[in-house]
């Protein structure tokens, strides 16, 4: 998804965090204790962030992303809790392992609730936040696909019949410009049996993704944390009307609703998202 010719090279590796061997993408000064930390959503993987990691590193930042357990190439150990809290704890362990003390979080989709719970656990470690089609979602009602996943038997049937072509069609159907073919193919390559199972568990455990909104707003708003909000106007899963509402928790947020984008702006408008993120990061101390 790289858009810029001047991006820093992204290195691939792994780390062991909380008993999970996780795939890692990283660029920039790896010894820095302050880093841009990208958290993917569903379906997604660290690969989603390759372009943005490169761009952030080009702006002088250490930048990284990991495959969350049972996403991408990361296999969750037995007993791993496929819950928002479980994933947030994993994220905390991973950052500790990587020596990251201050994080510029970049969150997408389900990475939002996960990242925000981690923020609630360690608010002092948050340097800035970039919300891409995610955030604090008061009053949110699950989208249609999520409701299918959350329904026993129906969810399993759906996952069992999600062939490559059906997956491709489903994803593109709701995207205003369609998604790049290689992006969708890579996403499906990672959408294996483990991931499908993890998705069902995660969605079924999350009754209301907006339930923590009042507490998070109360915690974050007084801190006025630097925030960038990027939202595809035609997001079929998380309505772009939530973009402006992020100011309730992040009063100084710079909000961009991209008029021709869908749920994955970093895939359908990579140049714009990279520009916005790098400019935002340059402004941070």
């Amino acid at each position: 998804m790289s858009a810029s010719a001047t991006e820093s090279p992204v290195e691939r590796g792994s780390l062991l965090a909380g008993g999970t061997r996780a795939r890692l993408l990283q660029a920039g000064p790896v010894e820095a204790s302050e880093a841009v930390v990208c958290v993917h959503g569903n379906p997604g993987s660290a690969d989603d962030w390759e372009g943005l990691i490169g761009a952030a590193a080009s702006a002088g930042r250490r930048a990284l992303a990991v495959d969350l357990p049972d996403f991408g190439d990361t296999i969750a150990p037995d007993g791993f809790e496929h819950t928002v809290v479980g994933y947030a704890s994993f994220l905390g362990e991973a950052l500790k392992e990587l020596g990251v003390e201050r994080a510029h979080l970049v969150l997408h989709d389900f990475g939002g609730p996960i990242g925000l719970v981690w923020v609630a656990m360690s608010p002092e470690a948050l340097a800035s936040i970039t919300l891409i089609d995610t955030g604090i979602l008061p009053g949110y009602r699950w989208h249609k696909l999520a409701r299918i996943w959350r329904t026993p038997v129906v969810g399993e049937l759906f996952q069992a019949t999600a062939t490559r072509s059906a997956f491709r069609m489903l994803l593109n159907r709701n995207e205003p410009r369609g998604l790049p073919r290689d992006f969708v193919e890579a996403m499906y390559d990672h959408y294996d049996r483990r991931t499908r199972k993890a998705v069902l568990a995660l969605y079924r455990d999350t009754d209301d993704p907006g339930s923590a909104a009042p507490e998070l707003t109360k915690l974050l708003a007084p801190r006025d944390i630097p925030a960038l909000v990027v939202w595809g106007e035609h997001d079929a899963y998380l309505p772009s009307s939530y973009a402006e509402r992020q100011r309730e928790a992040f009063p100084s947020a710079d909000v961009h609703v991209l008029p021709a984008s869908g749920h994955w702006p970093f895939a359908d408008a990579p140049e714009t998202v990279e520009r916005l993120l790098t400019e935002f990061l340059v402004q941070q101390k």
Partner: protein
Amino acid sequence: MPSTDPHSPIIGDGPAYDAVVVGGSLAGCATAIQLGRAGLRVALVEKQPDPKAFKRMCSHFIQASGVPAIERLGLLEPMEAAGAHRPRLHMWTKWGWIEAPPERAARGLNLRREVLDPMVRSTAAETPGVEMLLGWSGERLLRDGGSFAGVVVRNREGEESELRARLTVGADGRDSKIAELSEVPVKTYPHNRIAYGGYFEGPPPQHSPDSTIWFLDPHWAASFPTDSGLYFYAAMPTKERLPEFKREPEAALVKFLADLPEPPPIRDSRAIEPVLGKIDMTNRVRKPVAPGLALVGDAALAADPLFGVGCGWAFQSAEWLSDSVMPALQGEESLEQGLEHYRRRHAYELRGHAFFIHDYSNGRRFNPVERLMFSAAARDPRSAELMEAFGTRQIRPQQMMPRVMPRALAVNVRHALAR
């Protein structure tokens, strides 16, 4: 006889005019020029006292369909000499760019209203037979039996005078007072977008000197390179975006344009004057004639500015009216017949376009037919050419649909099979 001094209070009980035109903007001046050149006596009334006054909230883009009327007025060369651009159109859609083959693409006109309006007004003022009355506005209509017979005008000092004429022309814009006084039937259609725009200097946008339009479905944006090395950047999002534009118009415009796919270099540009916005643009369609009275330009049909038809239709409707009533005013037929010719011509030329424009102006997204046509035009040069001819109002919907629809279907089927 009223004075020819544009600033002098005139009039008294002078002889009747052949026509009194209320509104000295594009449509009114064009009407007065045409009638004056035919040897008729015309009073042209404009409420602004300054002959250099101009319409500020306007994209100034003139569709290719309006160019022949401008050429006939003898204004094309002076406009080009004043720096007008002759742009082709490049239209961004989510399916790709719609670009007619360059050698066949129609060319519109881009000249700032600050330059155009004084030019058209001075041409009208210099036309023999045309008496320009600046600083006067139409207050009441005069009647003669069942027919309108002129207008009572008033200046800023409150002086009033009667201008008696065989034909009264309302060219006083979207909120036409003449139309209101005449009580002609009017239909309104809701408009659910806002319009913000401004002139910038800086690096040229892509496709410059051509114009670029983004159909963001449902939002819209445009860049219009124009005279003096300036670029007019405009956004027409739906009204949900109003709060941010109201809060900081220039910042919101810059952000909106900068976040477009393949954006223009607006962030590296500088606004040379405040960004202006318009919130209420209700479409108004009025019956363009009544006994002894006609409406031209926006007074007759005020359509969504998104499609850039206002300026072109002002010139065109003035031409149609002049051509239609000239024989009557020269005594060759009744005025009633002349006005009926105009009514029919106006409806024939614009009704189809207006239907599509009004329908889209409620802020909705493309319907299936539009999606079919736009996607085909992005994939097929011939479809692009037809869409461009329709979009620049050179062919009417009834001419476009039978040619575009079968081809659009075929193009999209071929595209689907090739995937």
